[in-house]
């Protein structure tokens, strides 16, 4: 059913029940996302896509549009909230871009640049997180995990659909875990899929590192904003 909503005052005609981030992108309005993957069930973990919907702050990837919705994206307070969330992720773990294999291909880094983060407003925590090398071909660099749960939900054992990755404990004790038995059964293309799916440099394929030279890396060729708008217009 065709409905009307407004985003930043512009009237948009769309289909009832479509996801707000996708509707915005189809109409050339960029809402930054981090955990969201188009076509996959919503995770709603990172909240980077927070916008104001009828006056309330909501994560745009979790909102099915309905007639008469009034959405504010480019509004100072909510824009700053999104930036603060990204800054928060940078201090919560140890995001050492200069020494990271994922640099230039990292969604979190690309978002930081896109949202104009120069420094985090929060104190850097430098938590101690132990990395996990136990699996044969996967290495977990826990310093970089942002708990988006993409790998937890979307990377599963192909025979049994059992989860390969999981999150243990809560709050500051939370850590990403890997089922080594299942991980060692993963075919090479699934390992690559997992490493690609990880929006940061937490899931790393062993033996693969800095493949693309500086200047020709994913987000240097095309920014995260351009990619989001382009992908969704198709």
């Amino acid at each position, binding site marked *: 059913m065709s409905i009307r909503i407004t985003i930043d005052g512009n009237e948009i005609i769309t289909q009832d029940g479509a996801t707000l981030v996708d509707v915005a992108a189809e109409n050339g309005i960029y809402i930054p996302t981090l955990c969201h993957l188009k076509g996959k069930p919503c995770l709603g973990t990172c909240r980077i896509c927070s916008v104001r919907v009828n006056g309330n702050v909501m994560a745009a990837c979790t909102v099915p549009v309905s007639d008469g919705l009034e959405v504010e994206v480019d509004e100072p307070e909510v824009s700053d909230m999104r930036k603060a969330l990204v800054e928060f992720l*940078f201090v919560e773990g*140890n*995001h*050492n*871009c*200069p*020494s*990271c294999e994922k*640099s*230039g291909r990292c969604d979190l*880094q690309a978002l*930081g*640049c*896109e949202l*104009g*983060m*120069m*420094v*985090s407003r929060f*104190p*850097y925590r*430098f*938590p*101690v997180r132990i990395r996990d090398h136990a699996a044969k071909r996967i290495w977990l660099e826990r310093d970089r995990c942002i708990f988006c749960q993409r790998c937890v939900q979307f990377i599963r054992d192909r025979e049994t659909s059992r989860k390969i990755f999981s999150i243990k404990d809560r709050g500051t004790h939370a850590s990403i875990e890997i089922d080594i038995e299942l991980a060692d059964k993963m075919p090479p293309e699934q390992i690559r899929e997992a490493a690609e799916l990880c929006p940061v440099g937490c899931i790393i394929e062993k033996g693969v590192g800095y493949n693309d030279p*500086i200047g020709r890396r994913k987000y240097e060729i095309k*920014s995260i904003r351009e990619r989001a708008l382009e992908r969704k217009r198709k």
Partner: protein
Amino acid sequence: MRRPVKNETASHELPATPLDPSVRAERDKKIQVAMIALCGCWGCTLSFLDMDENLLRLLEKVSITRSSLTDIKRIPHHCAIGFVEGGIANDENIETLEHFRENCDILISVGACAVWGGVPAMRNVVNLEECFREAYVDSPTAVPGSKPVIPYHPDIPRITTKVYPCHEVVKMDYFIPGCPPDGAAIFKVLDDLVNGRDVNLPTSMNRYD
């Protein structure tokens, strides 16, 4: 927090021939810029040189006092802009940065180390004792048979327990991330400041590695 210094003369305290008054007057008319490097690798200073011919444009308006290029050890007078490279890893860094804050109108954190600690801050996840042990006692590159010694002397700056970003020690006014930032990014910020514009580093120039 000056440490007791014995038998030490800094180069800026040595007698020197006074500068030609006309040259002095020309320099004094310009905007005074000073640069310091704390716990970093000097890569950001090299990036500063990567401004190439833009450096000449900048030098029409600014005069660089203390820097690694001029080898002046203390700012001789109040400066408009202070360029800080490197994070805080010892008490000498704190003293230098505080002195800089008192004597500069605007301070800029340049590069990952100044902005959040950078590579030196990788030691923040181990305690200091372990860190010293690895570096000096159980060092894999120690000369065989040599006596392991952790350096300690009043003239050697005391290391801080953790590495801190500059803005956790004094107020910093602007930040240029990057390891190191591009010469173009440094030029953009300095050019904005020198010409009295609002500092605005475009997204395309912002990077963290």
